[in-house]
């Protein structure tokens, strides 16, 4: 492993690949947080009064709360007064109507990210096949929503949350904070008070969304925490696959990211939510990097509904997120597939919660953790089988792979079972890459580097195969970039 170790160190010295700052004039609020900040954000977004009231109520509640202490993280004190809570690219007057009107620098940024809107436009001009609709969140304001027309044909609403607040207030009032209550936790409450934008998806009854929906978040302006919300509602018998991917430019100060994602699945509906997260992880000594504190929760409200979370977490200095499923409907299904990589001085405390309430509900958890260098990777999961959940079934598998002797892998699986007909299984293993495995490969003429890469890829394959086609390519690319040098 010495070679791999050495290469890990080389990797650490590599510049963050996506570390570039697009120099666009931003309309940014000065740092600080009080009621006026909340009012200012609301005013800038021209929100109706009920929305402002809601924010202020959340802010009042947040002030009474304290940050959680239980995660397995070495978390420095965050000064919430030193963060700017709003940043929007200038020229937002009417919002760009077509790609031509979009700031060319913005397009350049997306080009660097490798998922350009340009390509989307070209594709749009030629055919309606392929089709990833991108709702690009570029520092808090949704710049461009594509494919809306195509989606509108089916009655699907896919827009920024700000638009939804204006155009579909009834849906927002009905569903927002119905899955993650305002006071759910410290960071969720903060998000409720100061959230700037996000995505809203509504799939009407019986509609199968014809394309994968996608949002790219990108933190750009210096010192702006990004607080977005995502709300997805899948009505009876509908299906949607939603992709979320993130990259951020290199910064020295820690940036705070506290998002809230809420999913609602009605009877027979299915939501597939995939994330690739590759924010700046900080440097080897733990300086810089993004703090990623996300509350993600799905409610399977109707019978036979299904929610599937897939995540590939390679970035961020500190990750704190537990995409969860509340399985209320009978026969509903929750899935969680995760690859979490922590290298450098990254810390990840991530996992899931499966709350079984309905009869014959089932859940599957597959969590793969890879730790390298000084990375600390913790899986924290809860499987709760309520009294009413007859015939509930859970299978949990969490495996850790350790590369190097200074990293750590931890598992905290909580299992609470209150029903005798439930079947709950948990399995966890921790291992390093076996010398015999390496020997086997090398003996067949495969270099050590390739062999390690192959083994790590095999280790994560179970999760990768859950990603949608359009995303799998990028996910694998991100992982191989993150592990480059370490494993080839």
């Amino acid at each position: 492993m010495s070679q791999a170790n050495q290469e890990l160190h080389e990797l650490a010295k590599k510049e963050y690949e996506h570390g570039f700052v697009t120099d666009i004039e931003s309309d940014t609020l000065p740092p600080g947080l009080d009621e006026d900040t909340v009012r200012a954000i609301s005013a800038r977004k021209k929100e109706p009064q009920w929305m402002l009231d809601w924010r202020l109520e959340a802010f009042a509640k947040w002030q009474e709360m304290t940050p959680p202490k239980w995660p397995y993280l070495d978390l420095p004190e965050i000064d919430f007064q030193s963060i700017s809570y709003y940043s929007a690219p200038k020229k937002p007057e009417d919002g760009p109507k077509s790609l031509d009107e979009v700031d060319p620098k913005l397009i350049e940024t997306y080009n660097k990210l490798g998922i350009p809107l340009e390509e989307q436009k070209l594709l749009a001009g030629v055919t309606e096949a392929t089709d990833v609709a991108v709702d690009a969140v570029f520092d808090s304001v949704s710049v461009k929503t594509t494919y809306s027309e195509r989606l509108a044909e089916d009655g699907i609403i896919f827009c920024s949350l700000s638009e939804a607040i204006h155009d579909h207030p009834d849906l927002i009032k009905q569903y927002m904070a119905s899955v993650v209550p305002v006071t759910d936790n410290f960071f969720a409450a903060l998000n409720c008070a100061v959230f700037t934008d996000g995505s809203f998806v509504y799939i009407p009854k019986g509609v199968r969304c014809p394309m994968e929906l996608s949002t790219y978040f990108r933190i750009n302006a210096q010192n702006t925490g990004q607080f977005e919300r995502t709300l997805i509602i899948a009505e009876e018998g509908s299906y949607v696959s939603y992709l979320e991917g993130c990259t951020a430019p290199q910064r020295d100060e820690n940036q705070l990211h506290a998002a809230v994602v809420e999913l609602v699945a009605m009877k027979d509906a299915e939501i597939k939510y995939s994330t690739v997260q590759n924010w700046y992880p900080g440097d080897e000594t733990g300086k810089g990097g993004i703090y990623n504190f996300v509350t993600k929760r799905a409610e399977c409200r109707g019978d036979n509904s299904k929610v599937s979370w897939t995540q590939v977490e390679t970035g961020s200095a500190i990750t704190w997120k537990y995409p969860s499923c509340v399985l209320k409907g009978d026969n509903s299904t929750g899935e969680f597939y995760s690859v979490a990589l922590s290298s450098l001085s990254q810390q990840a405390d991530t996992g899931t919660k499966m709350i079984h309430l309905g009869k014959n509900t089932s859940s599957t958890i597959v969590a793969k953790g890879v730790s390298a260098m000084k990375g600390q990777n913790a899986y924290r999961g809860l499987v709760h089988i309520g009294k009413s959940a007859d015939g509930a079934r859970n299978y949990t598998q969490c495996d850790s792979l350790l590369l190097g002797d200074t990293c750590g892998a931890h598992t905290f699986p909580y299992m609470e079972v209150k029903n005798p007909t439930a079947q709950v299984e948990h399995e966890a293993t921790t291992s390093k890459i076996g010398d015999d495995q390496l020997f086997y490969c090398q003996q067949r003429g495969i270099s050590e580097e390739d062999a390690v890469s192959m083994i790590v890829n095999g280790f994560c394959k179970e999760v990768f195969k859950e990603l949608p086609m359009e995303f799998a390519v990028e996910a694998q690319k991100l992982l191989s970039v993150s592990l480059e040098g370490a494993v080839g």
Partner: protein
Amino acid sequence: MSEVIEHYVSEHASLKDVLPGNDLSWLNESRDAALQQLSTQGFPTLRAEDWKYTSIRPIEKRQFKLAQEVGHSVDATSINGYLYKDLDCHLMVFVDGRFSAPLSNLGDLARGITIKDLSTALREDSDVLKTHLCSAADMTRNGFAAMNAAFMSDGAFIELDKNCVVDLPIHLMFLSTGQHEELTSQSRILILAGDNSQAKIIESYHAQQDSVYFNNITTEVKLGRNANLEHYKVQEESKKAFHVATLQVDQQRDSTFTSHSVSLGAQLARNDINSWMGDEGATCNLYGLYVADGRQHTDFHTRIDHAKPHCSSNEYYKGILDGHSRAVFNGQVHVHPDAQKSDAQQANNNLLLSKDAEIDTKPQLEIYADDVTAAHGATVGQLDENMMFYLRSRGIDYNSAHALLVYGFAHSVIEKMSLAPLRKHLESALVSRIPNAGQFSDMVED
């Protein structure tokens, strides 16, 4: 300070002059520090992660008193009922937490073994105790550990010299008479096993009546190089009793510690089992079985520390829950940096027999070294349909088949015990606990 803590502080003040070793300044200092700890810290609440699922309100609600003297009602014949048939042993009997010399029967002790009650040991071996007492068990862990350190009123001191192999098991019997209301016993057991020594030690807890009392026990074990200790604990307290116990083990190079813990009784039973493998080549095996019904609450918290390379640990716990009972299992394995070539295996399987029973299990791994094989598994479920079908298709009625499968589930833990008489006792104890097991009880008795 809460009312109940005030009660114990004043209780301590009134007992100060009668607690064993009150002429030893080091012990008084240690007792005072522990009392201070208890009064500032109090008893653990549900907000503490380690006590998240176990409420100790029923203990807090009562003001227990320490037994002052040995109950006289107990005689040798009544002790016989609690002895294990066909088991020759060195016997120490404690009645309501007080050592009873007339009932004990140490027999002929081989050279190199010291077995004494705590008061005698504090008189005769105070230098040894000064070094070792309270050195393994951390009294700051929680209020109960501190309480025991402050009050320890009796107990056992067992010392094995280098190369000493004890042929007969040592049986420490704790009997609660229930003659007085709401008694507590605060026992302390200290076991020092020298290099290359070997012994088997049994702790057993019994009650004469179905009464309310509170046993708070701390057992400290220190194993020298290549020492091998088997520790058995059979807890058959009254169904109204409270039982809180800490077993703290310190292991030296190449030592082997095996714990078998069976929890059958008590309204609330909490066991903390911690092993610190402080040098290379140590092995730690923890086996356990908990059977609960009615409104019983059983809680096992184990922690194994792999502090040095080449240590291995093996943990196997099973639980059967019926009625409104609730069980908690928390198995923590901590592999420290540089503890390479560690091997940690853990399994916890639970059977829920009633719709009102509950299990909360958390097999927890914390690993800071890379060359490690660690695996843990936990399952909760009911009996396997295929096994049931197999038995039913061979003409065995549902109830008997059910009982047989439950028995088989639990037996895999008992069969790991090397003491046959103890195994026999537990087999029949198990049969009496499983509904409808009468059908095959004669098969077990043989």
